[in-house]
């Protein structure tokens, strides 16, 4: 059942500030139609470029996405740019009373849209000298390919919302909610953020099997037989269980040198994210466990 506050329902039923500003100083666009939510925010500044004169939005998404965008525009109007640039997703959620945890990514989308709009203004109008948040190096590296989520966004959301589990990160950013291939990396980011990198608890499926370990510990390059055997072992002990966790499966069709041919089955065979699964997860796993030269192709 919907667990929305009256304020969320009000902003959803009567959204404020819908549309696009023709004379906007900057436009922020985040999300996309494939992911299931997207937002376009246009922002106009006052004459002195110190305050936000107007903000309008368009949103494709669920009730809480629409309400979050509507709330954001109300919060932005008349605020100083400096003040507004400090707005967090939690501020949006607070403005609305609260949001269900699984819907927190809607408020994050609002925060991101405004940051994107600010970045757009800085790019188009460097003469405004807008204050901007400092970004860490490498922050724009994409961790979750399915939903296009960067390291920077994951770190920011973990810090702002004091998140502690991968599941929460998925609720707040959607990262890990598609093929799930980046869940380990999210865990690493969480561990770093929580200062527990040392005791990072590896997921069982990520542990190389004893056979793979034995072969790997043997010095020298792999013989074709060893390589094939390691591919088979990795496939059976890591890749298939991982896919099965998501209701899918795969079959190892052929191995020729470094070329691995597979066939996706179950959910994977029909998943719109199948290409990503192959490229970012199956291939990455085999490269990590067997050889960096491996390429994976899927046949029907």
């Amino acid at each position: 059942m919907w667990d929305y506050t009256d304020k969320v329902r009000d902003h959803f039923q009567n959204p404020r500030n819908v549309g696009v500003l023709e004379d906007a100083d900057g436009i922020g666009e985040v999300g996309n139609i494939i992911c299931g939510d997207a937002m376009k925010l246009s922002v106009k500044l006052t004459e002195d470029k110190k305050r936000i004169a107007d903000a309008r939005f368009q949103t494709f998404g669920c009730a809480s996405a629409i309400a979050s965008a509507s709330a954001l525009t109300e919060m932005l109007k008349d605020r100083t740019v400096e003040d507004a640039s400090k707005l967090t997703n939690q501020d949006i959620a607070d403005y609305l009373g609260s949001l269900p945890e699984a819907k927190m990514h809607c408020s994050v989308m609002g925060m991101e849209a405004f940051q994107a709009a600010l970045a757009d203004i800085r790019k188009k109008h460097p003469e405004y000298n807008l204050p901007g948040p400092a970004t860490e190096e490498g922050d724009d590296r994409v961790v979750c390919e399915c939903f296009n989520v960067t390291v920077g966004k994951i770190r920011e959301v973990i810090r702002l919302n004091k998140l502690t589990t991968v599941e929460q990160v998925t609720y707040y950013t959607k990262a890990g909610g598609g093929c799930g291939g980046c869940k380990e990396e999210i865990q690493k980011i969480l561990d770093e953020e929580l200062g527990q990198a040392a005791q990072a608890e590896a997921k069982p499926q990520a542990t190389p099997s004893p056979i793979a370990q034995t072969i790997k510990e043997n010095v020298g390059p792999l013989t074709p037989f060893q390589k094939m055997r390691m591919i088979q072992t990795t496939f059976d002990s890591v890749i298939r269980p991982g896919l099965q966790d998501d209701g899918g499966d795969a079959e190892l069709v052929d191995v020729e040198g470094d070329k691995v041919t597979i066939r996706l089955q179950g959910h994977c065979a029909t998943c719109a994210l199948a290409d990503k699964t192959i490229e970012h997860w199956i291939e990455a796993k085999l490269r990590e466990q067997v050889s960096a030269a491996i390429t994976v192709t899927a046949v029907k």
Partner: protein
Amino acid sequence: MSEPLIYLDNNATTRVAEEVFDAMAPFLREEYANPSSVYPFAGPAAAAIAKGREQVATLLGAKPEEIIFTSCGSESDNAVLRSAVKTQVGRRRILTTCVEHPAILNTCRDLTQYAGVHVDYLSVDSQGRIDLDEAKALINEDTAIVSVMFANNEIGNIYPIRELSRLAHAKGALFHTDAVQAIGKVPVDLQNDLTDVDFLSLSGHKFHAPKGIGVLYRRTFAPFATYLTGGHQEKMQRAGTENVASIAGIGKAAELALLHIEEENTRVKALRDKLQAGLVATCPDAIVNGDQEHRLPNTLNICFKYIEGESILLRLWDRAHICASSGSACTTGSLEPSHVLRAMGLDYKALHGTVRLSLSRYTTEAEIDTALEVLPPIIRNLRELSPFGREE
């Protein structure tokens, strides 16, 4: 609730028929005996079970002894698949489809992980149809059981059960169909028509019986190994003291279903068709999903491009207390939209904007008229909010 409710979500569950409630009531009050007891006080309870079994058997064209009462459709599905893996010694494959209910898909997944079974999944085309040639190619001497749903819960497609069950038997495999969505909506005749179906699952609450009662049909002599061990109930095929009231209820519901099956395929179907035609005519970029030639008479799955399903549902509720479902990510409880619509390869611009409207014999024309009045402005308004659908 002051405002009237317009319940167009009958594939999710249905209201309990008054007659069903009345049939159950004595067994929740004065007739509380354990049907296995020996004194005459237990007579009415035992008789209610016998009657319920007969009524369900009549609906299916089955023999009463082929009816096993369970707690729900999911239990029936679990029982069959887990049994097949035990009884079909030496056969290690299951064939099913990628559009099954989670009761089948997750049981298959469990058997894959813990019983070393290999599962093959039939693919579907853009209308959700399966290919019999693919099925034929995938069924072999290693197939323990073929399990294909009678009708799909989301898009309403009816699958070729007769042909599939024959293909399964030709290779010595068992055949099961999850008929939870089909019962009461389309005729099912296991005696004369579907003679190669070994097992069939159904669930009471989808045809006006209460929740918590299901049936597993097991054809005489079909190999079966129980997974719920205990007492002698259901001829030791399913232990546990019988849910007497609900068995009386599902029996009555089966009797009523048989009486109303004609109405489902005439009046209810006409209302569904009116709803579909009205929405397609008034909402641009609306696409009907599924196989319109082989579809349940009560189901309409329609997508409205450029908008998201959950927001449609919330508006429907707020404007007219209309209950419906959506296959969008935000309503499936995960971040991914419906596995059925994804398997059909639906355009992503449309995938998130699907709404399922499912009728029942209690649906009135006035309710359909209200839905037709309320829905188009909701679609228009949400599209005005959306950044998509303008440039094309």
